[in-house]
């Protein structure tokens, strides 16, 4: 431990405010490992408390028009990587099929941080395990677009999460694409205080039920419990075809929860994160049915 560690040393780093996507990609390519994208800054600016050095060069992407836009189309919505949580929550209000994402974007951190923090930053911060939007987007079958100076590539969010730690410098997450379909969705998060915490466990749910409440399709994603969020395939399979009854869903979840190995952390012991999953699943199911 050394004193005053949150204050910068005498470096002369740079921030390049990119006017366009191509300019940003060029700059990132030129900087290579010495550079990184800078979106909302709510993770990067906290590097000192994590005792992580800042990069010599940042490329600010917040002024790039297409990265700050949300396009709500007939078949899909497209979210620019630099869209803030606050803007996303506001844009999705009134679209019940995206209630899960609106809730995720609208309840993370605190209001001022939501107005800065971006969706792209949320997906790209490798060491931030409690991101609300990740499980929400997973349960919505989101895809992401990754661009570099020479190419652009689309992949499922699940693939992105597997591959993101291996990306070479110069790549930038540019867009998130979420398909539109009829469904009920809900986001159940458990902070330790009523207000303002990162959740210790997250259940994001998207479900299609027929008129008799039978489950026709369901996606359940678990966040914050392990280092990387993931879908709960066995629970999804167990629910298919049956009536979506929140209490029963919780019982099944309790039987299957042992497949998660919670992460130990300063906030809570590992067992706790797993232990609260069934009730969060129940809450998510009840909320989805009510939405």
């Amino acid at each position, binding site marked *: 431990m050394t004193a005053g560690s949150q204050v*910068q040393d005498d470096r002369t780093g*740079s921030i390049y405010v990119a006017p366009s996507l191509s300019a940003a990609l060029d700059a990132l390519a030129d900087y290579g490992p010495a550079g990184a994208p*800078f979106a909302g800054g709510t993770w990067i600016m*906290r590097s*000192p408390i994590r005792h992580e050095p800042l990069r010599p060069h*940042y490329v600010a992407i917040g002024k790039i028009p297409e990265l700050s836009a949300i396009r709500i189309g007939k078949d899909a919505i497209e979210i620019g990587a630099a869209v803030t949580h606050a803007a996303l929550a506001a844009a999705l209000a009134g679209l019940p099929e995206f209630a899960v994402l609106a809730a995720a974007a609208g309840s993370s*951190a605190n*209001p*001022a941080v939501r*107005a800065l923090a971006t969706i792209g930053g949320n997906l790209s911060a490798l060491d931030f395990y409690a991101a609300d939007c990740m499980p929400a987007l997973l349960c919505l079958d989101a895809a992401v677009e990754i661009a570099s100076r020479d190419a652009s590539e689309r992949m499922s969010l699940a693939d992105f999460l597997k591959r993101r730690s291996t990306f070479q410098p110069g790549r930038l997450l540019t867009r998130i694409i979420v398909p539109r379909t009829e469904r009920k969705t809900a986001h159940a998060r458990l902070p330790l205080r009523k207000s303002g915490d990162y959740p210790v466990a997250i259940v994001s749910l998207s479900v299609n039920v027929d008129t008799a409440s039978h489950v026709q399709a369901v996606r359940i994603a678990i966040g914050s419990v392990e280092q990387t969020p993931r879908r709960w395939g066995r629970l999804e399979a167990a629910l298919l075809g049956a009536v979506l009854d929140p209490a029963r869903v919780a019982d099944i979840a309790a039987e299957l929860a042992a497949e998660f190995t919670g992460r130990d952390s300063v906030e809570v012991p590992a067992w706790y994160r797993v232990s609260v999953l069934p009730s969060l699943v129940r809450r998510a199911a009840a909320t989805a049915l009510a939405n």
Partner: protein
Amino acid sequence: MVFTLSVNGDRLASTADPVTPLVDVLREEFHLTGAKPVCREGFCGACMVLVDGKPAPSCLMPVALAADCEIRTVEGLAGGGTLNPIQQALETCDAVQCGMCFPGMVVTLTHLLTTTSGATRDDIRAALTGNICRCTGYERIIDAAVLALAAT
């Protein structure tokens, strides 16, 4: 590199490194010490300023990105020797104790008052989740916000 910032209507120049948090530039170069760097993580809200009219923790904003924005600090919220409506209400309610969090509280609540005229007590609590107060237990701050809202 020199950044030109618009702070409380003044054009001011900073020679700080681009990644320097705005709060340090405000305090150390511009002598505007109202904003307090308490946690430097965006959790406490004591360094909140209005950036283009919206509350932002100035510890998380690098000076390079603040350069094109209109910044208003707690010192610039009311003219001359006056108090703005929320400052007045907080004074009337005898809400202040050590006072370190109040610059940020005032910034957040000034924004709430101008954007959410029908805010309930619960809305006020939710708006304050990024502003920590260690002294007062919050209720008087909420009382003051209710009082100020009723007067607008």
